[in-house]
């Protein structure tokens, strides 16, 4: 039986979000002493968009 469309969307959002969050080298950045503001910008953007997508995915599934 095919899964509902919203379930697939929610799962995709969560997976893309996890991927973005995983790519964001937060720990390395925090430990690094030579991180520039540009490093912070890229890492934080990846992490924040990842977190937002995961949140939206969970919310969509719960709805």
């Amino acid at each position, binding site marked *: 039986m095919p899964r509902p469309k919203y379930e697939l969307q929610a799962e995709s959002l969560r997976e893309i979000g996890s991927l973005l969050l995983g790519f964001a080298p937060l720990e390395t950045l925090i430990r690094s002493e030579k991180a520039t503001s540009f490093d912070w*910008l890229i890492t*934080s953007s990846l992490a924040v968009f990842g*977190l937002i997508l995961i949140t939206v995915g969970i919310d969509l599934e719960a*709805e």
Partner: protein
Amino acid sequence: MNDSVPAPNVSIDQPQLEWHPVAPYIPAPPHYPAVPAHPPLKTLLLAILLFLVTLCTCLVAGAHFAAAYAENEAVNFDEFLNALTLLYKHPFALISGLPFALTLLTILLVHELGHYFACRHHHIHSTYPYFIPFPSLIGTFGAFIMIRSPIRTRRALFDVGASGPLVGFIVAVPALLFGILHAKVVPGLADPNHVSAILGAPLILHGLAALFYPHTPVANILLHPVGRAAWVGLFATSLNLLPAAQLDGGHILRSLSPRLHRYFSIVVPFILIALAYFHFWAGWYVWGALLFIIRFFRFVPIFDPEPLNPARRLGAVISLAVFILCFMPSPFLG
């Protein structure tokens, strides 16, 4: 001649229409048939979890701001990273971050609840406010709600868009006033040779600084952490009021003129990217790209010929004034 009036053709034995205690037909409200149910419990738990994590990251940021304020120093990325270790080394030391964290979270929460209750007032289905925690200098990347049913009238679009920033601004201004009344004047505070991050000042801060600290450069004023939280709140308000796409400012502009909204949604991303290109703040690259991308998301059309009433038009002018007062081309320098 028969003058008698013919008897009406009604028999008492004829079956009568049944009367229902609940009327079978109730005219629906003009656009929204029913009050949406509250979002599911699972999403409430998710919202609470994100709020608590954001409280932690804001406490770290607040502890750093409190330490900088106590030692008459500007904010510093390295010191902030040291403050992060307090989370597991000395969690109780984070209590010093409460004034900043509670003020900021209150501003963000009333902003989002403004949207939430405007949605409920207009029978629009929306999620609970979700906070975005992040271990950054300001502790969070704000909060958002998602609107799950189409907005069908200009009035509703305006109310949903304007309610958040206006309510947030009303809460942020007294906090900023408190912060500037308890501020310290520290000469050389914004010396780029000694400081890793210089925070910009919106127009409203320039005005208050000129009022309470005449002849003092605003860069030398070290705000109390409560005032710094208000600064973050005003920054978030200005970002939300950018007149483009699905941001609050975009909703307000679209409720006034869909045509102008389309035009601004194309122009504003390029303006932001130009600001980043000319070294005002590299973060504008991200915002420009984001607005450029969400421009391609589908808008549900509004078939509502009725223009906004004068009170809401006045609200739109006030929103524009709030945007001008809060916007900073260079929120972070260094």
